[in-house]
């Protein structure tokens, strides 16, 4: 749950920074979404961003220095494409990340490669390019903080972040 809260805070931050109007999360919507999205069984409703994160899977992982997609990553992205196809009112921001091995500049460029690899794959699976934006955080936003491969492997990731809510 800690992770989820952080993700929603980030989404709220992005939407505020982008000065977007209706149709994007604001603090209120993000807070409401967390509470309202769940079902009695504990799994969020299929059309919710929470479902996208928990059931579809919002992230894929990469090998050291690589931006190519594994078959496992492609399977996850197939699910993302399907979900995005069914929920056309959402846009996404694809975040590319790197582990801490490597210089800041190189990791920014590597994160851009990874985010773009996901974007291109989603385009190939029918997600309109104009619904997706990419951003690289390089090594600035690790989710695991140990200095070992077990953590690095989780930090070398691209995360598809839902960045809009239904406008209806």
């Amino acid at each position: 749950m800690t992770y989820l809260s952080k993700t929603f805070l980030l989404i709220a931050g992005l939407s505020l920074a982008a000065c977007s109007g209706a149709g994007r999360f604001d603090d209120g919507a993000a807070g409401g979404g967390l509470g309202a999205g769940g079902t009695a069984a504990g799994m969020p409703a299929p059309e919710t961003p929470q479902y996208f994160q928990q059931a579809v899977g919002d992230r894929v992982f990469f090998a050291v220095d690589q931006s190519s997609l594994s078959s496992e990553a492609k399977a996850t992205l197939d699910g993302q494409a399907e979900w995005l196809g069914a929920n056309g009112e959402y846009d996404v921001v694809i975040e590319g990340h790197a582990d801490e091995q490597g210089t800041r500049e190189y990791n920014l460029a590597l994160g851009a490669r990874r985010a773009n690899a996901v974007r291109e794959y989603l385009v190939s699976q029918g997600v309109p390019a104009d619904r997706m934006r990419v951003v690289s955080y390089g090594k600035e936003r690790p989710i695991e903080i140990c200095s070992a491969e077990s953590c690095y492997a989780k930090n070398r990731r691209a995360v598809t972040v839902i960045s809009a809510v239904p406008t209806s």
Partner: protein
Amino acid sequence: MMRILFTLVAVLGVWAAPVAAQQDDGPLRIEITEGVIEPLPVAVPDFLSEDATGADFGRRIADVIAADLTGTGLFREIPPDAFISRLTSFSSPVEFSDWRAINAQALVSGAVTADASGKLVVRFRIYDVFAGQELGQGLQLTGTQQGWRRIAHKVADQVYSRITGEAPYFDSRVVYVAETGPKDNRAKRLAIMDYDGANVRYLTDSSAIVLAPRFSPSGDRVLYTSYESGFPRINVMDVGRVERSVLPTDEGTMSFAPRFGPDGRTVVYSLARGGNTDLYRMDISSGASTRLTSAPSIETAPSFSPDGTRIVFESDRSGSPQLYIMPAGGGDAERISFGQGRYGTPVWSPRGDLVAFTKQSKGRFHIGVMRTDGSEERLLTASFLDEGPTWSPNGRVIMFTRETQGAQGRASLYSVDITGRNLRQIPTDTGASDPSWSPLQD
């Protein structure tokens, strides 16, 4: 930032021996290039004053001068409690035998006048104790009491340059990223301080990630990367006014790793578009940009040669990150790094002869230097994570980021002499990364 004007005035007097003669037969000389093992003993008694306010400045100024000199690793301070003689008057003759007896080879004496208007006048003389004469001319510096540390640094700069023959660097500043919070939720702010860690001032709040500030050639502005828009974009800040603007960029791109050219108008940087990162240059006044590289590989971390004709940068076009040099307008690039490992963040030295870099090899990080043709590579440091070198204004010292390992990992600033000696941590209240050393202030 208040601009402090200093006046350098030769103090007149019978003791003012000709400088040239001093330099010709003065034995007091540190030749850094030959490798100094034994630091030169220097005495820096409290600068004298006729009143209590001035005496307080006199003590503090002497302390800063001694710290500057000993911080180079080239000098050793003789503790004041070893002094036999007390200087009682700035103009009285020096009892050299008393200073020889405690093996002081250099002696710095000074006098301070602090008046009610906030002005601070400092006079000083540097003595070659064993030769029994002055080293160069006495000088008078005028500044503000608020700016007393700068005056002290300027005195120390004179001592350093007269004894080593090198250009000085103490009266300089460092802009860096102040880091707080845990590793997975780190807050970053742009900060500026004196080169020795004093007088920290924050230039941004922590609402957006900021990365890799870089000084302009005159030290008046700083380029940096900010995530304020949600995406990395290059900002330029006037450090005096603390006013900033965002460099123009295309929607859907990310720009980072900026550096000024020596003209202070040209900026070279990385721009990522469609997952591919290339180098661009921009005229900062018109906003017009030119693409310098067009390859599917990553091109980043560009740095101009001091004459502005060439750019050294990092590219993985060979399969792993290596260093390349190309003409400043783009064109054929020549690879200069050929050792084992990955090379990044090249920075051209202010003297033009060396490139400092980050090297990753066998799970360790190093700061190193090589000649601009790639020869004579020397690694100066080794740790879990060292990166991002920046040159002192005189090209003798390199400051960089060192980050410790593990969940509690913390970034700090370190400096090292280009000989590889004198590794030191720069004291900072918070975590600190991405230093950029200013030019010498005027």
